[in-house]
């Protein structure tokens, strides 16, 4: 069985800076993989390179076995390669329902406008925003805006979902709600690549973790191992602290 999403030696440079450097990985169907790394590691740039916002300067991206390296963002969306934004991007003057209907209409494959609306309403219920469907999107609270982002990407009936820090800025209770929601999305058969800083989310959701540092993949493996990996701790805390940390861990 071939992977649903595969990156082969993908690089993206901005002038002399290599924001993403020679990254390769595979996402299998139905998998939840976490992408972690310190701030500025190139996580969002990697998502941008996958969805066509920034075309990779080298390497190839395959989606369902086909080469999609040079796709435009709207083509990615229509193919079923959806994403959310770290900084939420609603259509502020439209209602919540219209926001999601836009995704369903343009990114999905509805028979009609009415069907797009039905689909949008179902997704809003799914993420728990049914009660604010008619409110303007600009009036939503941050946790609800994050849910709106999710509903918008789900309305495109994606096969792969790239979640860019959907939990940033949420409190503990809100995160529990978001975790449950992501699990339910995965249960629908959507493969997920999740960018995350919160270790609680990473540990409880993902089967595999990719660690990005200075644009390069420095480690890859099961979440429990990654947390104790020397290179990963160094990337986050620097070599000195990593040494002390590991000594303390060894002493128990």
């Amino acid at each position, binding site marked *: 069985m071939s992977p649903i999403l595969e990156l082969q030696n993908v690089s993206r440079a901005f002038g002399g800076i290599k924001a993403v450097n020679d990254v390769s990985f595979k996402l299998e169907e139905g998998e939840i993989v976490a992408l972690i790394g310190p701030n500025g590691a190139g996580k969002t740039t990697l998502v941008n390179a996958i*969805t066509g916002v920034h075309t990779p300067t080298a390497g190839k991206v395959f989606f369902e076995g086909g080469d999609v390296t040079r796709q*435009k*963002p*709207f083509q990615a*969306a*229509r193919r079923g390669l959806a*994403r959310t*934004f770290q900084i939420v*991007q*609603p*259509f*502020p*003057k*439209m*209602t919540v329902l*219209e926001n999601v*209907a*836009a*995704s369903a*209409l*343009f*990114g*999905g494959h509805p028979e009609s*406008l009415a069907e797009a*609306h039905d689909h949008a309403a179902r997704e809003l219920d799914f993420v728990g925003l049914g009660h604010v469907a008619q409110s303007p999107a600009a009036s939503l609270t941050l946790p609800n805006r994050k849910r709106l982002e999710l509903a*918008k990407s789900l309305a*495109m009936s994606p096969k792969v979902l790239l979640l860019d820090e959907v939990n940033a800025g949420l409190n503990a209770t809100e995160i529990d709600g978001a975790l449950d929601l992501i699990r339910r999305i995965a249960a629908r058969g959507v493969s997920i690549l999740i960018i995350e800083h919160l270790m609680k989310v990473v540990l409880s959701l993902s089967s595999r973790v990719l660690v990005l540092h200075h644009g390069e993949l420095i480690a890859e493996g099961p979440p429990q191992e990654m947390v104790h990996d020397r290179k990963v701790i160094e990337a986050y805390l620097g070599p000195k602290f990593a040494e002390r940390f590991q000594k303390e861990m060894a002493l128990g």
Partner: protein
Amino acid sequence: MMARKSPWPLIAMALWLAALALTPVVLGNYEVRIAISIAMFTALALSWNIIGGFTGYPSFSTAAFYGIGCYVGALAQRSGVPAALAWLAAAAFVGGVSFLIGAIVLRLKGHYFAIGSIALVDISRLVVSSWGEVTGGGNGLNVPLLQGRPPEVSALVLYVMLGIMAAAFLANVLVDRSRLGFGLRCIEQNEDAADMVGIDTTRYKIAAYVLSAVFPGAVGAVYASWVGYIDPTDSFDILTTVKVPVMAMLGGAGTLLGPVVGAVSFVLLEEIFWANFLEWNRAIMGAIVVALIFFLPGGILKLDWRAILRRPSRRKAAERKPG
């Protein structure tokens, strides 16, 4: 927005068209001229509304579309093409030009797009002025006059202009209710997000730009036939390019009736100031435009008319109480 659309804008527009169409029957020559002016500018403002209002791209290309329309219509008529066909040819030609230019300048956003679109006006004017053997250069061109007595000719021009205005309005209504309009509104509010939900933004913007070009092309050609003489400075007037967006914004950009209301108000105000303050009219007009942009940023139609109408009566009631 996706709820069922109110029929009122359509009804109001039908009544307004009928009223304008009656001017040759019930009013004099001067009023017919004003009616033609109103129909012309309403058509231009409605066209601008598709790119500037729905899509949120501040286009200053109107004068270019209009001027190219003038020249294509005039040249076609001079080589023997019947007037009606020449007008259609002008609309089609301008549509083609806007498609080619749009594919280039619509890659720019915001101020950059505005500057790119204004450059099109100057470039077209320079090409027409320098290409003397075809366009007559700075000497201008004579256009075959329409046949008939003067009142008949102005009535005919009025009806044709009203036809273009109705077509431009219909284009607005169709865009507003279609998938295209939904996509354009998404682009207006957040272009990156629009791209991300699967809208082919480049194609949508080009469609809006072309739709905003064909009607001004036709208006220019009809105008050329009416006045019988065109030259580069008059056809590619930078003032046209500024006036038209001001009209649309004055009424309310992105709404169906906004450009209609804006064009009427502007043409009538301009007429009043021309007649009464021959030397100061531009300055007064400028002051009014600045005031409107400061105090009425959403346009006349976005005002809460009910609240304004209620206020005086409430004040009266308050005055009565203590007494």
